[in-house]
């Protein structure tokens, strides 16, 4: 009972939104790539690279805008780089991902070491961060104000991006192109589509979204870059997208669900549970999420097939 009190506070719900932010970015990133027919497993490393770029550029130029632009640029470049090797050089998707992840793990540490002389974190240099913001009227509403207001700007961008992403996918020509290519590249090609170009654009967008998530980690949530600071969040994002059934709104809710698992872990940790078991909670939740989603999906497919067989039988008996 004592423990339960920790969960029913405004702080707890505030934490959920805070820890869900990078997951939302990651899930949107995965979503765009998946709609284009590519499972992007480089989201995590894109986040790391963007986080590092943002911190370094802001520390050395003292220009927040430039840092953000550079971070996003790195994200786009990494997305397109993956696309180049996967699509144009015809490399296996997983292998490309493995290579890029390995590359990033090494390069991030090397770059950090070259600029700060430290292999663990960027605490030696002073970097800038994106400020928190209060929502004018909402902030005075009791409880709701405490939960919703006062977040980092990135958090609000994340939620806006969910809507933008939905609009992009379902209401713009580009979204239609991406979905068509992802559904069936050959069919799209036969009607004059250029699948390579569309996939590269999708992966570039995917990298862009991932980079925002990464910069939130190092310039919003924390003001420092730490090696391995994403701790697999990019992959949890892929899980959230899988569970969201390819819908940005669904992906957002799945990300919030995994964020809740994260927040629960945070609270339990303070209450001196075994930290290790608690730390595993978000990952267990993600695996469960993927499995449940797949079971439901298969169930749907099975019942659709059964219905089609029934209809076929009926029409056959009529004839």
């Amino acid at each position, binding site marked *: 009972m004592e423990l339960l009190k920790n969960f029913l506070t405004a702080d707890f719900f505030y934490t959920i939104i805070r820890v869900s932010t990078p997951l939302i970015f990651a899930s949107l990133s995965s979503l765009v790539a998946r709609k284009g027919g590519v*499972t992007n497993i480089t989201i995590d490393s894109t986040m790391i690279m963007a986080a590092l770029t943002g911190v370094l550029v802001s520390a050395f130029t003292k220009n927040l805008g430039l840092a953000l632009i550079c971070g996003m640029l790195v994200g786009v470049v990494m997305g397109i780089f993956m696309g180049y*090797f996967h699509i144009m050089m015809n490399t296996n998707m997983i292998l490309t991902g493995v290579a890029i992840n*390995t*590359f990033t793990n090494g*390069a991030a540490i*090397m770059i950090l070491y070259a600029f700060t002389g430290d292999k663990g974190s960027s605490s030696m240099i002073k970097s800038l961060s994106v400020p928190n913001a209060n929502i004018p009227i909402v902030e005075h509403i009791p409880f709701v104000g405490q939960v919703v207001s006062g977040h980092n700007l990135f958090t609000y961008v994340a939620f806006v991006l969910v809507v933008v992403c939905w609009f992009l996918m379902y209401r713009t020509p580009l979204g239609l192109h991406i979905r068509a290519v992802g559904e069936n590249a050959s069919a799209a090609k036969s009607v004059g589509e250029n699948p390579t170009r569309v996939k590269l654009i999708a992966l570039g967008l995917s990298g862009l979204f991932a980079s925002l998530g990464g910069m939130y980690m190092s310039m919003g949530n924390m003001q420092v870059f730490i090696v391995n600071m994403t*701790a697999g969040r990019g992959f949890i994002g892929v*899980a959230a997208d899988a569970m969201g059934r390819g819908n940005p709104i669904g992906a957002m809710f799945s990300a919030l669900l995994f964020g809740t698992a994260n927040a629960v872990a945070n609270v339990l940790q303070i209450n001196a549970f075994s930290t290790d078991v608690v730390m595993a909670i978000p990952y267990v939740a993600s695996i469960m999420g*993927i499995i449940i989603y*797949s079971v439901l999906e298969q169930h749907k497919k099975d019942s659709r097939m059964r219905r089609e067989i029934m209809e076929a039988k009926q029409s056959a008996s009529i004839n």
Partner: protein
Amino acid sequence: MNNKQLNQLFSVIKTILAIFIAMIVAFMIILIVSEEPLTALNAFLLGPFSSTRRIGNLIENTIPLIYVGLGVCILWATGKRTLSGEGCYYFGGLMAATVSIKMIALHGYKSTVFSMIVVFFVCGLMALLPMIVNLKYNTDAFVVSLLFNYVIFYVGNFIFSKFLMDITSTSSGSYPLPKDSFLPVLIPGTKVNANLIVALLAIVVVWFFLYKTKWGYRIRLVGLNPSYARYIGINVFAVCILAQFIGGGISGFGGGMEMFGRNPRFSWFSLTNMGWDGIMVATLAKYKPQYIIFSAFFLGYVRTGADIMNRSSDVASEIVMIIQAIMILFIGANAFLAGTQQKLRVKYSAKER
């Protein structure tokens, strides 16, 4: 020259070119980053052979790479890509330490052998979950195995801090591993022990299993064409599970063997990254067990060189990862040199006519 020979030739050329490109990039990075590039390059290239101890280091670094490479050869042979090797390698080391420290009833080599049997089966079983859910519910095997590795790690860390952590010692780590269970040292003055022989045997066994047994053939057939395999009556589910079990078991075995002679205590506080390295080794070896020895040795050499360079100059050892990544990209790229190969193919087939 017929088509098969041409394919073989090009696969060799591509591998060599990939290594070459990766090394060139590495040299360029060293030149840019380092203030004393010649010292760094010297340490990197010649360092591993400069003393008995370093040659010993080189062999010690090669051995675990052999196991994880073999692990990936089998894990990926069915065409399902998982990253189970990573979690299994970590857990293998942990299980070996746990069993050999806690089973005080067994002494000497009995303890070693018993721990390794336990490790093989535990890790094999642990690797099954991502594959089972993939086969049953069609989930993404790679992402699930990757997330599952984190779970394995935190569970492992829990076991470590609950049962193994030695709070009386100043060095962070487990209780000391029993010395009488250590493997006999082969080269005096180094830590190269009987593990080397076991690793070489493992290569032979895996090669024999994949290429000379019924189950190995089935595994490869499923990898080539799962629908065809199912059509001719092969139980694809069982075959995938078996491959995953053995692959995970071998990866775990590699982690476990590290515990008997290399370090006095178990002290892994994060995932080891060996699963990713295993993919690298196996890709470089074209997923053929007989070539694993070369690719593992090469990677061991690069890694030892980078370690030495890290200590004797100002270049970080993480440059290894960049080398690895570039090699995988170019070896994996099917379109790389494909045009030249096609031209030659056309030329030779025109000649034959």
